[in-house]
């Protein structure tokens, strides 16, 4: 068998084609930093890469959800703190009213303050963040607590509890869950009915206190000390419950960050090109391409025609 001009060039051509093809593949890998650029690059890696991407995307969103949840919890905590202080002040007033021999004028003054404090409680429970009521359950567009519209201040009679400013809850008792990890839901709200109308109806107790002061009745005030403490406890319990949720959210957040990093690593293992390796291979291919080119040049300079 002879090597003819045609066979030599055909072989060289095919070698050059193949080397330049490999070269361009490596160049693409180096440029994109990925070894998985099309499905056929590694069909077995597709499934893990896609599922890792899904998880990374979800983790990002979980982290944002957790932050939103934390914002909510922190906002709520501020308002709950205000309510707790109000309850402390109410108890102080109650103790003053039951201990000291107060003049009727002082009693009236205290009654006025109790009424003010009720207003402050009402304002705190109707707290809004971003136009949404915090303590209304799912009914975030409805004012959770409102004084009974039938209440007439002029007809107020401390001895007749039907004329008192009754506070009505208009929200619902739904639990707002956030998904903070796959299949993990955590409740990030406290509904007004649990908070103010659980075992003790806080507003009712405050109304009783006001009436007791207006009636100048220290004995009645004394009987209200325990319900007041209970009402304060009710609010405190909810607050500490949400404090725990806040703690859990923080832990879940840092966990989710770690999971995300792990998933990134996992995805990278299947999808990203080892740049060092790619560059080394690129240099190798370039060298062999150069060699092939110089051989091709050499072949054409070698001819029998120069010797006869």
């Amino acid at each position, binding site marked *: *068998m*002879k*090597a*003819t*001009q*045609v*066979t030599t060039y*055909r*072989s060289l051509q*095919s070698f050059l084609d*193949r080397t330049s093809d490999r070269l361009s593949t490596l160049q693409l890998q180096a440029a994109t930093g990925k070894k*998985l*650029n*099309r*499905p*056929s*690059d*590694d*069909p*077995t890696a*597709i*499934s893990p*890469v*896609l*599922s890792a*991407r*899904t998880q990374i*995307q*979800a983790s*990002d*969103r*979980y982290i*944002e*959800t957790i932050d*939103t*949840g934390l914002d909510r919890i922190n906002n709520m905590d501020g308002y709950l703190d205000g309510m707790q202080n109000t309850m402390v002040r109410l108890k102080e007033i109650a103790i003053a009213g039951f201990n000291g021999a107060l003049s009727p004028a002082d009693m009236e003054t205290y009654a006025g303050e109790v009424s003010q404090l009720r207003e402050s409680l009402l304002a705190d429970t109707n707290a809004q963040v971003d136009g*949404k009521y915090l303590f*209304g*359950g*799912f*009914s*975030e*567009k409805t004012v959770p607590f409102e004084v009974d519209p039938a209440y007439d201040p002029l007809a107020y009679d401390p001895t007749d509890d039907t004329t008192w400013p009754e506070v009505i809850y208009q929200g*619902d008792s*739904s639990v*707002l*869950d*956030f*998904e903070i990890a*796959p*299949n993990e*839901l955590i409740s990030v709200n406290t509904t007004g009915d649990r908070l103010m109308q659980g075992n003790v109806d806080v507003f009712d107790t405050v109304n009783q206190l006001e009436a007791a002061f207006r009636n100048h009745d220290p004995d009645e005030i004394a009987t209200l000390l325990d319900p007041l403490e209970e009402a304060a406890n009710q609010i405190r319990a909810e607050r500490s419950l949400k404090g725990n949720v806040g703690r859990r959210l923080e832990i879940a957040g840092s966990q989710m960050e770690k999971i995300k990093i792990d998933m990134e690593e996992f995805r990278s293992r299947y999808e990203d090109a080892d740049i060092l390796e790619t560059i080394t291979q690129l240099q190798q291919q370039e060298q062999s391409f150069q060699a092939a080119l110089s051989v091709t040049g050499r072949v054409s300079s070698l*001819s*029998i*025609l120069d010797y*006869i």
Partner: protein
Amino acid sequence: MGGLNAALNSGRTSLQTNQKAIEITGLNVANVNTEGYSRQSPHLTPYPALAFGDYFIGTGVTVGSIQRSHDVFLAGQIKDKAKEAGQEESMLNPLAELERVIGIGEGSLSDEFDQFFDAWRQLSTNPGGEVERQAVLQRGELIGRSFSNIYKEIQQSEKNINSTITSKIDGVNLMLDEVAQLNTRISALEMSGQDANSDRDRRDMLLKNLSTSIGATTFETSTGAASVQLPNGMPLVEMGKANNINAVFSGTDVNLELSFGDSTLPLDRNALGGEFRGLYEVRDVMIPDVVDRLDQLAYGFATEVNAMHAVGAGLDGSTGQSFFAPPGSHVSQGYADDTAANFAGGEVIVNVAGVETLVTVGDPASLEDIRAAIDGVADVTASIDFSAPDYTLRVESTNDPKENITIDASSLTGETYAPPAFSSQDYSANLRMSIDTTSKIAAGQTIAPGDNTNALDILQLEQQQTLGNDTFVSYYGKIASTVGVEAARNRQAAQGFQDSLIQLENMRDGIDGVSLEEEMINLLKYQRGFEASARFLSTVDEMMSTLMTLKR
């Protein structure tokens, strides 16, 4: 005196013969780069010897014939490999196209799924938010568009394949006609005792090209004519007669048929080889499979999301709403028999716009029994379609507009037939939104703006294995893997066949091709022969002159 005259004559033949040989060498050198050219060489024979007294002395030399170097085995091998290489190489481009469409990079369909559920996840943290609701609507729209884009692009590559087929078929017919003409010429020439070397070269090249494009097989008859056939044995060229292949258009599809005078014979992909087989393989096997699975993905995705969405309530109080426009028909896979009791009994759950109805199917059941059980229940009709060789169960909503239906028949398992699973043909092209206002998005199960319970339920679909053992994303991943595996195999195979084809052609050229070195040396050889004969003639001439001077 006869001796010297005879020597003059023999010198003349030598001059002529060497000249002829140099001409042939020149022809070889001229064709050094001609594809398919086979080296020709003069076959030199001495003239018959004459008796001179006691001796027989030759009377010169002549070119007995011009031989064409030809290796039948290698030519056959090349045709064989050309057919395989043609098939694989023709698939390269359509598969690369398909791979690009079923992409896995950013912006691929799997990304759209992630984004879609991300929008719902965002909505779950602020279910009443207008911005979040807009995002969900938009993502729904985009994923529908993504599906139909993929569908359209696949249709486009199918069209490209069809136009490749029609443009190539003309070339094939021309080649077939030319082979028929060459057949006639070669047998006529060779019958009269002449060489038909260049015609044979030309025909060999055409036959190789025919093998590449349609996988034609060839054998040579005793008259020197080439008989060309399709891989399934149908004759393409017999002696001087070629049967043409025609492209037949049905809708956008192109099919081929072989015409014998008045009658025609349709050619399916099994009748073909080479490039046409490769194109048919992608068009008739690969693409329908991908489209079918894409339809199933779109169908499963839309019906699952719809069923979940219908349970919830929008901000405007609407309930039972489909998120995506529900598919018009729900067609099961095909079964060979509609009356044989090949299903186990059980309960089929028919969910129409979020309302579930349990249908009991007795044990054992036939497809007809299942149809009868479902038909008329909860605003759906069920019918059995027959398109050879299979029976399929079709379920449709009787309401207008169509309502979302999901049919869970997975409990009918355990007998000969697998339980019916439903899909809708070409649904991926038609996946679009059913709702168009943000207030209709059912984030909650109540009308309350803060209710995110339904959004949380829809989120579960992301990780649920709703399509057999697959989530939406992993199902898409499987489609991409199938295309990837096929493309990788095809690239390897094309490379391999290309390599062996180059190897074989090198071998052929090593034997039959023109080597410049060889030709140059032959040139020297014949030139020297010519010079020597000239010198011989001048010697004989001198001898004759010597004789002439004797008489003076």
